[in-house]
């Protein structure tokens, strides 16, 4: 009994040490991702939005989305982004303070969903836009777990389901990568353009009228940065609009550092395999020697 427990203790210590070493060593530097030079994005200015929902209708039209019917079949009434809705306007109201907020994919610079997807169905493709490839996706929904903004939505009501989210109108007929929402906005509350230009524009707006805005551009650094940037009204913090408090660390950083630390070049598993094989072989030799004894 004592022998067994001692041996067990030794073995566990060994395994534990190996894994711990793996975990600790892994937290090495991971390259910081930046937006590609031709990155496209959007800038949404909540101080200009009047909540007309023209962008919601335009997105549905441009992307041939099905209607999210209310029970009376009168309206298209999504209560959140979902398998039928890639873009939505929500209302924040607290006493006298009112703000609209447009929600759709943030097209992160270092996306959690892209880091999650086993087979690269979600990737940053042309212009840094995060797009979904139905030829690869197996519908495992890990992307839904990984996205801090809860953006990828699943078609739960279909036998052949897709993952649904804004793809910056990449397939828009005659006007690819020309988002319908920006085209139709009557007050230019959401505008489209080169990411670098939009970031500059956002900074300029903050500098020109600091009393109008919350002193932050959401997406500049959050979660590693996003290609869709947000400006909020003064007095309406981004948390109130439903944005998580992410800090600057890219979403997939921790998990990937650990994975790479242990599996870099597949060295650790290969070495471990050889060690295991050697130990088993040595024990077997010992066993047959024992069995050979009378």
């Amino acid at each position, binding site marked *: 009994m004592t022998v067994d427990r001692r041996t067990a203790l030794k073995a566990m210590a060994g395994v534990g040490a190996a894994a711990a070493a793996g975990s600790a060593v892994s937290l090495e530097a991971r390259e910081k991702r930046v937006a590609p030079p031709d990155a496209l994005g959007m800038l949404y200015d909540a101080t200009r939005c009047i909540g007309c929902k023209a962008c919601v209708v335009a997105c549905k039209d441009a992307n041939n989305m099905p209607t999210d019917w209310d029970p009376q079949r*009168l309206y*298209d*009434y999504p*209560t959140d982004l979902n398998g039928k809705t890639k873009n939505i306007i*929500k209302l924040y109201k607290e006493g006298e303070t009112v703000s609209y907020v447009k929600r759709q994919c943030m097209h992160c610079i270092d996306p959690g969903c892209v880091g999650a997807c086993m087979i690269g169905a979600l990737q940053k493709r042309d212009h840094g836009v995060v797009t979904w490839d139905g030829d690869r996706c197996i519908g495992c929904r890990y992307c839904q777990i990984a996205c801090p903004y809860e953006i990828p939505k699943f078609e739960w009501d279909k036998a052949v389901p897709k993952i649904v989210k804004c793809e910056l109108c990449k397939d828009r007929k005659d006007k690819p990568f020309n988002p319908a929402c920006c085209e139709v906005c009557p007050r230019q509350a959401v505008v489209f353009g080169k990411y670098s230009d939009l970031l500059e524009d956002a900074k300029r707006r903050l500098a020109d009228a600091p009393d109008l805005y919350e002193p932050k551009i959401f997406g500049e650094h959050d979660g590693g940065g996003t290609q869709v940037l947000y400006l909020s009204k003064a007095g309406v913090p981004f948390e*109130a609009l439903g944005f998580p408090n992410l800090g600057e660390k890219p979403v997939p950083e921790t998990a990937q550092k650990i994975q790479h630390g242990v599996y870099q070049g597949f060295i650790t598993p290969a070495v471990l395999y050889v060690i295991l094989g050697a130990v088993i072989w040595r024990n077997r030799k010992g066993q047959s020697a024992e069995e050979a004894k009378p």
Partner: protein
Amino acid sequence: MGKPRGIPYDRVRPREGGEDGGGVQRRDFLKTCTLAAASVGLPAWTAKVWAENAAKGLKPSVIWLHFQECTGCTESLLRTSHPKVAELILDLVSLDYCETLFAAAGYQAEEALHAAMEQNAGKYICVIEGSIPVKENGIYCKIGGRTALDIVNDVASKAGALIAIGACASWGGVASADPNPTGATGAPEVLKGKTVVTIPGCPANPYNFLGVALQYATFGTLPALDELGRPKFAYGRVIHEDCPRRPHFDAGRFVQQFGDEGHRLGYCLYKMGCKGPATHANCSLQRFGEVEAWPIGIGHPCVGCTEQSVLWKMPIHSTVEITRPTPPDVYPEIHGKQGKVGAVATGVAGLVGGALIGAGLMAAKKVAAEPEKEK
């Protein structure tokens, strides 16, 4: 072009430079032309072109055919008196054949038709009012011994432009309602292959007709048409899109019964059967009858009189499907609700989980008992 003007009209308007004195007439005429241009959506400078052409006597010929119709479209046109557009049109064009307005009849009328066709071949505007029966070779409508079918094919063959005014001429109208015993058909279907501008409506909105006619008269061109031949400037949107009661629809304020409080307050008539969402027309913007009247404005749901799939097919007071739904006048919350904890499911989970754990703990005793040994 020195063509004889043919049979005089019922209505005669003092001419420019006539008995009442030139200057005042000319100013009034120009003003009226300008108003007319505005009301049919043409730029103001076309008024000058018209005035000049009229002075020179350059007027395009119009041949107006009547078939299976109630003459409502003509009457609707003649009710445009503010401005005096109807009179204006009669000054700006040469109405060379029109059974409603002609003083003459019989052989004289038919001769006028023949003469107009000969002299303006390839240039005249052929207006068709009323449907064309096609059953049994079209015997259900005959004028001067000829079937409507023959007449329309003949006149249309030499026309410069073809305009079908009213639902009947556009797609068959009331005569084509089930069981359509005469085989009433719209002009576009009879004149297959030809470009026929259709101005559906029952009656058609006269300004839609005037816009097309005046454009052709002035520029020799037709406005952009959709796949049914309807000018897009008038029929490009559905009533629902431009309805003044739309905010009531979006906010869910509906008339539930004729005469109720909502009806008095002018709420949306969708639940009373308004076909606005399915009807292409501009009635809410370009009203009728010179008093800005239109059906929804006076509290009755739109019956879809421009649409072949609606009028005479759908009951007036049954609701129509919304084919292009838009969000209502409410907003989703920042944090939407998803999922719920079902009572039955919780019960099942509790029962099964509890049973398994309980059974497991109890089973320990049973399992621990040594099996019967041979020893």
